[in-house]
């Protein structure tokens, strides 16, 4: 079980493009990854569920994973979010 807290830093928030990137990345790991915002927990592999978080700029999110490569998955997703999805 691995967990980390991150803040959405790209100005336009977790919109369609970054959400697509996140879902793609999450799908590459064996461990299921979830994203939590204000108690709402969604699968990081589903672009639809990610979008329903409506995570605008400045939103704090918790990344959780459980499984064989949980730590790597959480690290990779944290890097993507902190790196502003390479968008800015």
């Amino acid at each position, binding site marked *: 079980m691995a967990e980390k807290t991150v803040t959405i830093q790209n*100005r*336009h*928030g977790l*919109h*369609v*493009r970054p*959400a*697509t990137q996140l*879902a*793609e990345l999450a799908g590459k790991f064996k461990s299921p990854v979830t994203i939590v915002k204000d108690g709402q927990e969604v699968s990081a592999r*589903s*672009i*639809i569920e990610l*979008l*329903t978080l*409506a995570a*605008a*700029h400045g939103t704090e999110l918790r990344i959780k994973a459980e499984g064989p490569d949980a730590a790597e998955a959480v690290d990779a997703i944290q890097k993507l979010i902190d790196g502003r999805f390479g968008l800015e």
Partner: protein
Amino acid sequence: MQILKGTPVSPGIVIGEAFLLDLEEYRMPRRAVVPEHIEAEVARFQSAIDKVVAEITEDVKRLAAAMPEDDLHKIFEGHIAIAQDLVVSVIDSIRKYRFTPEHAVSKKIRTIVKQLTSRDDPGGFAARIVADFTDVEKRLLRALFGQREQSHNGVHQKSVIFARDLTPSQTISLDRSKILGFVTEGGGRTSHTAILARAQGIPAVVGIENVTRDVSGGDMVIVDGTKGIVIVEPDEETLRKYRTLEKNFIQFERRTAEEMRTQPSETRDGIAVSLLANIELAEEAENAKDYGAGGIGLFRTEFLYTDPRNPPGEKQQFDAYVSVLKAFPGRPVTIRALDIGADKDLIGGTAPERNPFLGCRGIRLLFDRMDLFRTQLRAILRASSFGKLRLMFPMVSTVEEIKQAKAIVADVREELDGEGKTFDPEMPIGIMIEVPSAAIAADILCTEADFLSIGTNDLVQYVMAVDRMNEKISSLYQPANPAVLRLLRSVIDAGARAERPVSMCGEMSGDPLFTALLLGFGLRSFSAVPSALPEVKKVLRSVTVPEAKQIAQDALALTDAHQVTEFLTEKTKRIIPELF
């Protein structure tokens, strides 16, 4: 007969049949599928998904090819991911609840939208995501109904397009040769529809509430894009009247344009006057040349910022600026820095203001958004080595703002120097005169500005304290008011005394009614929408400078806007009787 009034966004008159684009509110009957048909319905849904994915993939390709520097296509890639992500849960509800695929898709999207709209959404972030889901839903439902996207295939003959609002994907899919005009419920002067219409010279009226409900496909309609009027099922007399107007409008425009294109732009006594074009898209540059423009007097850069989530990068801007410069080699091209305020949130994150027209807009906003400002300056400076580029700042009200903006330009120049990038070190830096304080103190601003360009639309609005979109007081929006005329003359005088070129780029400079008057005030550079240039040139070539001075002097002796308008109409009528 029904007469509807909206906002005119692209001039001209057309008569034709109405074509309603995408007005369907897809409300699905909640019909249960009989058990033995369930798998067939699942298969039908699967093939709809395949079709939609193929359709979006095609759009992605086309967009990526058409605008390689733009990331717009990546948003559509996200739409593919959304469609694919719907598959499992929709199939699940077809099997479990025996929903039809249409109903299952609708229900799923409704649930998502409800979730997104149930919370506070101050920045409009969730609302933009809702638009993405709705776009995917519409495509899916169309595929399920066996309907093709109603694009050029739907429009069989030349028609007037009616829509609630056009999405970017609809706008790009329309066959422009089949479009007579545009009428929409939503949108303003800066909507996609308005930009497209103006760029193509297609008459358009926007902002007519419920128009898609009041008009049926196939109705005979008249669109007057000059006055902002749409007439549905006109009676014989109205139709006859407008047919004549339509014919005259087209003939006159064509004749004047042809007659004037190759004529030198000078007064009857041989004084050269520059006639420049206002454009909003780089693609309009060629069109401007066709109307005889000698350069670009105002390139509005707002239209590069079409997606608040995705402001244009340096490369994309650079390409756009260079393409305009290349269309006008050796001719002046004036690029205006981003001019927006809280009334149009094109960059995201702009807080609503109580009084946006007196708020953080133009240069004020650029100082606040240094990231956007510097990116744009880098693109403009780098483009400057490709032609005769002039940079202009909007909404300047004090001399300190010019100093500050120039300091930032100097800093960006140094940065580019450090990177070994080339630019024109002599690029003139000027300002818009559109705020009364700038107009009154134009002589002081000339100590810092290399040139002035009078933006009459805002200037008249601020001088008269009249919001021209407010119908109740629109009669007070008076370009011909003596106060406005005096101020214009004093700005032109200040520029002449300081030896700074003065141009005008508001609607007044494209209105032949004011051409002789402005010439008499000493204006020697006019910038207007390309289609207005031939008429302005016609007036120019018909008067001498002493005559124009006399007209100016006589007009200044009058005491109200109505007298001035009447006087100028009388004078202009002798030159272009067809206009009145």
